[in-house]
């Protein structure tokens, strides 16, 4: 099913979605765009390149409350925080970010213990993917082509959206998307010309190139295994690193978290918060031992996790080439260049 709407009337579509659940879409903020829950349909603005922070927070928020407790009271009085999850629409997700959900699914719900928070939020959400504008060159930091992701790949989305002049084409990709589009009375039917345009754009998206180097999962995993002990390599690539963790916070596939108790005046919450392997005390043990005290060891951990460990453990590379970490890095460390250099090392 292919539907369309005029982009000038996008707030009508937004309003209709808001009537069915939470609408989470890129919103223009002071520093750039970020995904937020929309409170006013007019906030929806499709004139963005990509968001500063990835959309992972829709399923894995920066803080997640587990339990409320009172110190000095019986543990039996502590109450798990109810997961009050309503249907959500994640609107305007770029194809590389859509791919990140699939990578995170393997970790959070596909293997071993199931993370109930990720699982329930993910089930309750519909993804409205959104093709990059092929008439605009890719940002210099992006390298999703390297990871085999097209600029207009609909896979993984429930509904996939492509801009056509002043119109927005919306195609149902999954049964969930099919049902949703059928319920959206503000949409009109697309023409055969629109359908051709949609298919042509998906194809052109595959030919659209960001920065590119030839990377395959298994060989790169092996390459980094061999490079692990090459301290000279790691010291060189991490030379400028400040260990600030910004790269991990904007990353769509970084999932490390801390669990901490926050108590104020006897009342507290146990919650998880995003954490980063770039921080010194991330691996500090109670004995005082810390296996990763040096910056190069931590940057090595981050890069090897994405391009080696994750592949050995789960299969795919844990990077989608969205370019966020490179844009966010205050000292211009670029994971693409590290991977590229590793290939040559």
């Amino acid at each position: 099913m292919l539907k369309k709407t005029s982009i000038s009337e996008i707030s009508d579509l937004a309003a209709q979605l808001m009537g069915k659940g939470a609408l989470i879409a890129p919103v223009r903020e002071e520093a750039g765009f970020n995904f937020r829950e929309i409170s006013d349909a007019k906030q929806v603005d499709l004139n963005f390149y990509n968001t500063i922070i990835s959309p992972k927070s829709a399923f894995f928020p920066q803080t997640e409350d587990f339990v409320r407790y009172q110190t000095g009271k019986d543990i039996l009085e502590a109450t798990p925080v109810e997961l009050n999850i309503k249907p959500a629409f994640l609107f305007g997700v770029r194809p590389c970010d859509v791919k990140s959900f699939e990578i995170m699914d393997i970790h959070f719900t596909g293997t071993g213990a199931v993370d109930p928070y990720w699982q329930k939020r993910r089930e309750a959400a519909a993804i409205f993917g959104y093709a990059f504008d092929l008439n605009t060159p890719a940002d210099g930091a992006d390298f999703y082509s390297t990871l085999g992701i097209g600029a207009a790949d609909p896979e993984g989305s429930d509904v996939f959206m492509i801009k056509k002049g002043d119109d927005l084409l919306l195609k149902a990709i999954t049964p969930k998307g099919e049902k949703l589009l059928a319920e959206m009375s503000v949409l009109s039917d697309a023409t055969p010309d629109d359908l051709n345009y949609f298919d042509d754009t998906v194809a052109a998206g595959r030919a659209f190139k960001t920065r590119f180097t030839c990377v395959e999962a298994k060989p790169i995993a092996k390459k980094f295994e061999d490079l692990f002990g090459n301290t000279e390599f790691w010291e060189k690539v991490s030379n400028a690193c400040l260990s600030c963790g910004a790269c991990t916070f904007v990353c769509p596939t970084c999932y490390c978290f801390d669990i901490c108790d926050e108590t104020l005046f006897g009342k507290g919450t146990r919650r998880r918060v995003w954490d980063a392997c770039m921080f010194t005390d991330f691996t500090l043990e109670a004995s005082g031992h810390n296996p990763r005290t040096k910056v190069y060891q931590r940057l090595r951990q981050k890069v090897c996790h994405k391009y080696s460990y994750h592949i050995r453990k789960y299969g795919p590379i844990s990077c989608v080439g969205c370019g966020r970490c490179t844009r966010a890095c205050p000292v211009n460390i670029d994971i693409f260049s590290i991977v590229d250099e590793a290939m040559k090392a």
Partner: protein
Amino acid sequence: MCLNNPYIPMPVEIIKIIDEVDTHDIKSFRLKFLNPEDEAKFKYLPGQFSELSIYGKGESPIGIASSPTQDGYVEFTVQRAGAIVPGLVTAALHDMDEGAKIGLRGPLGNSWPIEFLEKKNIVVVGGGFAFTTLRSLINYMLHKDNRSRFGEITVIYGARTPGLLLYKDELIQWEKRNDIRTVITVDKGDETWTGRQGFVPAVCKDVAPSPANTVAVICGPPIMIKFTLPVFFELGFSKENILTSLEMRMKCGVGKCGRCNVGYKYVCSDGPVFSLAQLEELPRDF
């Protein structure tokens, strides 16, 4: 674990506290589940661990020191941390009295590979405080229903001083049995000590267990491991037949929080038990 949520602890009561050593910084805590259904679900094997949870302080991953053959409670031996890093949970635990209630998440991790150990001779080597899950394994193997499943059992256990030996009553019981060889050593004895003196690696060399159909299970401080491994190589033990248990900083305990990896393995969910052969495949990042 609580209702399909691996992050929510189950309530337990401390029914007994045992002061294990003369420095009073290692205590064993016997815990009883407050909900019978939690107790029924808590099926574990020696070598597994749990997160002990105190709201307002946090959680600590601690190896299970009791054996699953012991009914009615689950026991943890906990050292008060804090010499270098503030140990909020262990300090709070040490300040608690019998009857106090805490939380528990588990059982977590893999275990000593019981099926692999069956029909083999077992040499258990422990040093200092790292004897807890070894003690669980020993008591498991010594249980009357299990003893015939294993070959000869040799235990080599050392501590710095006699007062730092854990589970003294059990050590005495094991020494009296004829189906287990117990070799206890201390780095330095006192005026009452009549047993062996010497470091664990030297004692292992002295005891010289045969590698034939034998698995060595070794836990101890890094320095002990470092000098004990060459002894076992020299005796002819293969890397597949030397097992140990790793420690890393942990949070979730279920392979989600990304904290305790060594290479592509999470110590909490893929470990903590690894053979030396498995460890040699991993990067030296621990």
